[in-house]
C-alpha cells in the first residue's frame, strides 16, 4: 500500500469515528449544547480539555521551538502548563459553582452590568477568533502535506467535519470527539518519540531518555548535543538567558493567558460537581503533560539526530571535533527523509562552497566566522523548518508507514479539537450573552437553541474564510490571544471571586485598561493592527520598555487591570448586597446542584 493510501486510511478512519460520535451525541437542550448537560466525568473532561488545549501549534511546532531555542524557550512549557495551577486554584471550582454557561455570563452577573458583559464578549471574540485562524490554517497545512489535496480543499474538509459535530452536538458532541481526538494525537506523538529515545539512549521513556546516556558516544545526551552545537557556532543547548525579567514576564503572560482563555474555562462548566472541577484540572494537566514532557525530549533528540545526520563522524566518541566535522555528508548521499521533505520546501540545500557536501552551522555568529572560513565553509547550506521535527520524526527513526499515517491523523486531530472548542466559546457568547441576555431576553429555549446553532455555523464560516485568507498578522496572533485573555478576562474573573469590593465600574475600567494597554504595547512594536510598516518603534530588545518584549506584556497588562479595578472600585460605591451574597455563594461547594437549574 502506498504512503498516500495509508494516510488516507488513517485520516478517513478518524473522521468516521468523529462523525459517528456526532450522530450519537446530538444536543437536545441548550444545557446540552453549552455545557454537555453538565454530566461529564472529571477524567473524561480532563482528556477533552487536553485536546481542547493542545492545538496544531503544540502538536507540530512546539518541539521545533524548543529544539531551536534550547533552555531559553522553556517558557512555553512552564507557561502553557502552569496556567492550569492558577485555573484549578483560582477560577475553575468557583466558576463551576456559579453554574452558568459562558465566561461573559459570570462577568455580567457578578458585576451586575450589561456593559461589563458586552466588554467581556468583545474580549472573548477577539481572543478566540484570532486563535481559531491558526487552527484552520494548521489543519489546511496538515491536509495538504499528508493527503495531497490543496490547502483550500483541506480547510473546507476540516470545516465540514467540525460543522457536523459542533452544530448538531454542541458541547456534547465536541466533548466526546475531543476525547477521541486526544487518544489519536497522543498515540501519534508518543510512538515515534519512544522509538527515537530507544535508538539514541536505550531508554523507552523519552522524558528519562533525554537525561540519560547517548549510546553511541557514551556521553550524557544533552552534553553530547551541546558539544556539537558549540563546535558549530550555535548556542549551548542549556545556555542561560541574560534578560531574566523578560523570561519571567513571558512565562507569566502565558500562564495568565492560559487561565483566561474562555474555551478552556468553559470546559470546567461541564462536570457534575465543584470537587470534580478541581480534579478535572489535575487530570487535564496529566494528559497535557504526557505530551509536554515528551516534547523537550523530542526536541533535543531530533536536533541531535539532525546534526549527526549531517556530520556522521561527530556521532560517536570524538577526540578531535575539527576532524570529525570536516567531512559532512555528500548531498548525493543524503538520507531518504531529507529527500522527502525537500519536496515540500521545508528543508532546503544551497551548496555555497560548491563542494557537494552539506555544511550546516550558525553563520550568524560573528565569533564563529573565522573558524568557518578556516574550514572552507562559505555559509550555512541547510535550512530546516522548525515544524519538520515532529512531522519527519517517524521517517528519521525509520518507522513503518502506518506511524506516518498516525501523525497525519494526529496533527489534524489537534487542529480540529482546538478549533471546535474555540468555535463553541464564540457561538455561545453570541447566542447566550448577546442574544438571550442582552438583545432579546424573551427568547424561548427552542429559539436560543436555533440561535446557538446558527451562530456556530456563522462562526465556522468566518473561521473558514479567515483560514483561506489569513490576515498578514497570523503569526503574531497567538501573542494577541494570550495577551487579551490574560490582561482583560483573567483579572476580572479572579477579582470577581476573591474580592467583594470590586464593583461594575472597577471591573469595566480594569478590563478596558488591561485590554488597551496591552494592545497599544503590541501595536507599538508590531504595527497598528499588525499592518507592517506602521510600528512606531523597531521590534528589537533595545527598544523594548525595560527589555519587556511585546509577547511578554500580557502579564503587565494584567497588573494594570488589577490596579485600575481596585482604585476605581475603592473610589466608588460598594457592590449591592445581593452581589456580595453571590460572591459568598460561589466560594462554597454546597448548593451547587440548585444553582445549575437557573
Amino acid at each position, binding site marked *: 500500500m502506498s504512503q498516500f493510501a495509508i494516510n488516507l486510511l488513517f485520516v478517513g478512519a478518524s473522521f468516521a469515528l468523529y462523525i459517528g460520535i456526532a450522530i450519537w451525541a446530538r444536543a437536545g437542550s441548550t444545557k446540552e449544547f453549552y455545557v454537555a448537560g453538565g454530566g461529564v466525568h472529571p477524567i473524561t473532561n480532563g482528556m477533552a480539555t487536553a485536546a481542547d488545549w493542545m492545538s496544531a501549534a503544540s502538536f507540530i511546532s512546539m518541539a521545533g521551538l524548543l529544539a531551536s531555542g534550547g533552555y531559553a524557550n522553556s517558557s512555553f512549557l512552564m507557561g502553557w502548563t502552569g496556567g492550569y495551577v492558577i485555573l484549578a486554584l483560582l477560577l475553575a471550582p468557583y466558576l463551576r459553582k456559579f453554574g452558568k454557561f459562558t465566561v461573559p455570563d459570570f462577568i455580567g452577573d457578578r458585576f451586575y452590568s450589561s456593559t461589563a458583559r458586552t466588554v467581556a464578549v468583545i474580549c472573548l471574540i477577539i481572543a478566540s477568533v484570532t486563535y481559531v485562524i491558526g487552527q484552520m490554517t494548521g489543519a489546511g497545512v496538515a491536509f495538504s502535506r499528508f493527503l495531497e489535496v490543496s490547502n483550500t480543499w483541506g480547510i473546507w474538509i476540516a470545516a465540514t467535519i467540525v460543522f457536523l459535530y459542533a452544530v448538531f452536538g454542541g458541547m456534547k458532541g465536541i466533548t466526546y470527539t475531543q476525547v477521541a481526538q486526544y487518544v489519536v494525537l497522543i498515540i501519534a506523538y508518543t510512538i515515534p518519540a519512544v522509538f527515537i529515545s530507544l535508538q539514541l539512549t536505550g531508554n523507552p521513556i523519552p522524558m528519562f531518555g533525554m*537525561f540519560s546516556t547517548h549510546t553511541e558516544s557514551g556521553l550524557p545526551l*544533552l552534553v553530547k548535543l551541546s558539544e556539537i552545537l558549540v563546535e558549530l557556532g550555535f548556542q549551548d543547548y542549556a545556555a542561560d538567558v541574560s534578560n531574566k525579567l523578560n523570561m519571567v514576564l513571558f512565562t507569566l503572560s502565558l500562564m495568565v493567558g492560559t487561565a483566561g482563555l474562555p474555551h478552556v474555562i468553559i470546559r470546567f462548566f461541564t462536570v457534575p460537581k465543584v470537587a470534580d472541577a478541581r480534579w478535572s484540572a489535575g487530570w487535564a494537566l496529566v494528559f497535557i503533560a504526557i505530551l509536554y514532557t515528551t516534547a523537550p525530549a523530542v526536541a533535543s533528540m531530533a536536533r541531535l539526530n539532525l546534526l549527526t545526520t549531517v556530520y556522521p563522524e561527530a556521532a560517536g566518541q570524538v577526540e578531535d571535533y575539527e576532524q570529525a566535522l570536516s567531512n559532512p555528508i555528500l548531498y548525493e548521499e543524503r538520507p531518504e527523509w531529507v529527500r522527502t521533505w525537500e519536496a515540500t520546501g521545508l528543508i532546503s540545500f544551497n551548496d555555497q562552497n560548491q563542494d557537494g557536501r552539506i555544511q550546516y552551522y550558525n553563520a550568524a555568529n560573528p565569533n564563529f566566522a573565522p573558524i568557518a572560513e578556516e574550514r572552507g565553509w562559505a555559509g550555512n547550506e541547510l535550512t530546516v523548518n522548525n515544524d519538520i521535527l515532529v512531522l519527519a520524526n517517524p521517517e528519521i527513526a525509520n518507522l513503518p508507514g502506518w506511524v506516518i499515517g498516525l501523525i497525519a491523523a494526529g496533527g489534524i486531530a489537534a487542529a480540529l479539537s482546538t478549533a471546535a472548542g474555540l468555535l463553541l466559546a464564540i457561538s455561545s457568547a453570541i447566542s447566550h450573552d448577546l442574544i438571550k441576555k442582552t438583545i432579546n431576553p424573551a427568547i424561548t429555549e427552542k429559539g436560543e437553541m436555533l440561535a446557538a446553532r446558527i451562530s456556530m455555523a456563522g462562526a465556522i464560516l468566518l473561521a473558514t474564510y479567515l483560514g483561506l485568507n489569513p490576515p498578514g498578522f497570523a503569526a503574531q496572533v497567538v501573542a494577541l490571544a494570550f495577551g487579551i485573555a490574560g490582561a482583560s478576562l483573567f483579572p476580572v474573573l479572579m477579582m470577581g471571586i476573591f474580592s467583594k469590593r470590586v464593583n461594575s465600574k472597577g471591573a469595566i475600567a480594569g478590563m478596558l485598561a488591561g485590554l488597551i494597554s496591552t494592545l497599544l504595547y503590541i501595536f507599538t512594536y508590531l504595527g497598528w493592527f499588525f499592518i507592517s510598516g506602521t510600528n512606531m518603534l523597531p521590534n528589537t530588545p533595545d527598544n523594548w520598555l525595560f527589555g519587556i518584549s511585546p509577547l511578554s506584556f500580557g502579564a503587565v497588562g494584567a497588573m494594570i487591570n488589577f490596579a485600575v479595578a481596585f482604585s476605581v472600585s475603592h473610589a466608588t460605591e460598594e457592590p449591592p448586597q445581593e452581589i456580595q451574597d453571590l460572591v459568598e455563594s460561589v466560594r462554597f461547594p*454546597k*448548593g451547587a446542584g440548585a444553582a445549575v437549574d437557573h
Partner: protein
Amino acid sequence: MADNNSNAAAYWSANLRLITGCLIVWALVSYGFAILLRPLIAGIEIGGTDLGFWFAQQGSMLTFIAIIFFYGWRMNKLDKQFGLEE
C-alpha cells in the same frame, strides 16, 4: 446564622491559606528554580545538565500536577470538615 457565617469565614480563610501555600510552591519551582535561582543551584548536576534546566523542562510541570491534586485532596477534606460539601 452567626454560626454559619463564622464557619464559612473559617473555611474561606483556610482555603486562602492553602492557596497561598500552593502558589508559593508553584512560583518557587517555575520562576524560582527554573529561572531566577537557576545560577544558585547550577552546581547540582542531573543527567548531563543542571537542576535548573531540569526544572524548566520537566520538574516544574510534574510539580504543577502534584500541586493541583494536593489542593483537590485538601479541599475535599476541608469541604467535609466544615460541612460545606455538595
